[in-house]
């Protein structure tokens, strides 16, 4: 794929997938910022990454797309040092589950660097997270909760093709460390037919990195989700609308740290009811934070107790049937919304 262009990348399939969008964002970022480089296991051509997110990129930028040995801790440590020295490293972890190995460098080094030294630490860690059938306990986790816990890290989780492209570019441009949570189920399933003659890199971002988006309007209940769960929630919302006449408002958080609470408060002022959906476990998670903020700052808007839909409290099961029940799905979301609306 020598001399590959963004157009060629985008045109390689009829529609643009979430994964195409990520690839194109990195391609465009490498072109736009000479200080950007990609570092990760198997990212170089001809392989082009475990999910092919970097396919073609090392051919275009051989020095700046580099295979790493298996060493998530050293990958993150290297990124910190490089960021301090003016680079914009983009790390690819093959699965977000392996971020646990880099935990120390991410939360103790990347997150503390600016506060301690006053020197920005612009790095992006791409974390393919969330479930796929059969992935089991070590390839399906959603680690955003423990990343959001640490001051100094920005954590984002796009749910659409458009956001995958723009938010990745915005993350690379950001001067602080960004934990970029991708959703593996969306990689191929989330598609967008581009407008006639208009590719992603010709479009302009509609929202800044830190803002949440109201992706469906309604008055019966606010449902907050992010990443892969936005799709499930939209499905649930559609069912509720056509079958039950319940119109829910859906908010895609997009940025998990810091949280754009204002968009949630504004929505609650319209609905008075809140359901929080995350694919991760519930304990101390993003949902817990959203609800804690809501009860503290928007108590007067609540007409029903906020409800959460999260993964069940076990490691992630291997068998596809167990897995499907373990993660939140449209039916469980529908049920939670109905219980909340009926309260």
């Amino acid at each position, binding site marked *: 794929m020598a001399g590959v262009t963004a157009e060629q990348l985008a045109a390689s399939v009829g529609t643009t997938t979430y994964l195409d969008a990520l690839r194109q964002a990195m391609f465009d970022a490498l072109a736009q910022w000479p200080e950007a480089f990609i570092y990760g296991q198997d990212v170089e051509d001809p392989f082009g990454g475990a999910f092919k997110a970097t396919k073609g990129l090392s051919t275009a930028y051989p020095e700046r797309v580099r295979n790493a040995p298996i060493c998530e801790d050293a990958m993150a*440590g290297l990124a910190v040092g490089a960021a301090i*020295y*003016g680079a914009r490293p983009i790390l690819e972890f093959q699965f977000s589950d392996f971020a646990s190995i880099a935990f*120390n460098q991410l939360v103790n080094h990347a997150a503390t660097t600016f506060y301690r030294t006053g020197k920005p630490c612009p790095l992006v860690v791409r974390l393919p997270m969330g479930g796929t059938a059969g992935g089991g306990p070590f390839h399906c986790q959603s680690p955003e909760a423990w990343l959001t816990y640490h001051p100094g890290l920005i954590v984002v989780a796009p749910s659409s093709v458009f956001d995958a492209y723009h938010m990745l570019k915005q993350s690379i441009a*950001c001067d602080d460390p960004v934990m970029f949570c991708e959703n593996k189920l969306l990689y191929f399933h989330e598609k967008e037919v581009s407008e006639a003659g208009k590719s992603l890199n010709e479009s302009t*971002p509609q929202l800044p990195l830190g803002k949440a988006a109201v992706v469906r309007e309604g008055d019966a209940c606010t449902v907050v989700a992010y990443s892969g769960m936005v799709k499930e929630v939209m499905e649930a919302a559609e069912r509720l609308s056509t079958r039950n006449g319940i119109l829910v408002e859906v908010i895609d958080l997009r940025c998990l740290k810091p949280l754009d609470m204002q968009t949630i408060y504004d929505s609650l002022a319209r609905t008075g009811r809140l359901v929080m959906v995350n694919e991760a476990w519930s304990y101390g998670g993003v949902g817990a934070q959203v609800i804690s903020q809501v009860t503290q700052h928007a108590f007067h808007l609540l007409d029903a107790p906020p409800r959460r839909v999260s993964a069940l409290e076990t490691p992630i099961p291997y068998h596809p049937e167990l897995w499907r029940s373990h993660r939140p799905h449209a039916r469980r979301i529908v049920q939670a919304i109905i219980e909340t609306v009926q309260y």
Partner: protein
Amino acid sequence: MMTSHHSVDRPPVSDEQRLQLAELMLRSRMLEQRIAALYRQGRIAGGVYLGYGHELSSAACAMQLEPSDVYAPLIRDMAGRLAKGETELDVLRVYLGRETGTMRGRDGNIHRGDLRLNILPMISHLGSMLAAVNGALLAKKLAGETGMVGMACVGEGGISTGAASEALNQAAIEHLPLVVIVSNNQYAYSTTNDKSFACEDLALRGPAFGLQSRSCNGNDADACLSTAQAAVAAARTGAGPQLIVVDVLRRCGHGEHDDGAYMSQELQENYPDCITASLAAWLESGLIDAEWETTQRSGIETHIQSIVEQVLAEPEPSPHTEEWTALSNPGQLYEVNL
């Protein structure tokens, strides 16, 4: 011990280097003695960890670095930091938590760094700084810089962490000009060598990962200067990452809170104090005269005293004016075209 994994090239050492080393060792020792006193006065918060016994090797290694080289010292590298350009003023501002210090009271003491001097601020997790130096070197390499070196310090405990192993492997794969100084000071806190590692010689770790290894006696000034000079030159000229194992003895407790009562008497007899021994040898060789030490000490003492007085008068950080943000520019999250 001269085994096949060692590089044995020994460039010559000049009197100028020896004199510079002598001065750095004294400055380091006297500054740390003052810091220990300030700690016992309750003027320093947190912990104080001293480099007694490490001064010679620490300074001898860091002396080989250029100002633009990257240096990641560890807790016992006061002498190396001074060699890299830190001043007594810089050090005391951080130890006394002053707003004027590089860490502005947000971090302190041995964690301090100074990016103007290319000294990285260490995190406490041993072995973690090696990869950061790799990153700095890779960034420079991608930016087209050549002839740079990065030096990372670690101990015989830290070199056995997963983080250190990953980073050694990484440096070798990327063929980075990294020089790793492993100071085996016989104690990882209270843990002795036999419970820290089981290989015959830590220098074996170098070739195992693809680094050139060297060893030297941390009390031997010429050996340290020469070995470090050779390793740094090799790294600088494209020979890939280098590892130096320095044999020293920590001549104090782990920190000022620790009396080191568990330390062996026998070891202490085997390892004379590097400063006393070197100065005696240099006096005998005629490098310095009888007055040299007295003059030096009195000059350093006066200087430190005036710096302490200056720093104590400087402002401390205030929770009322602290910015309380861990992000460099939170506002950028709300700008569309980032």
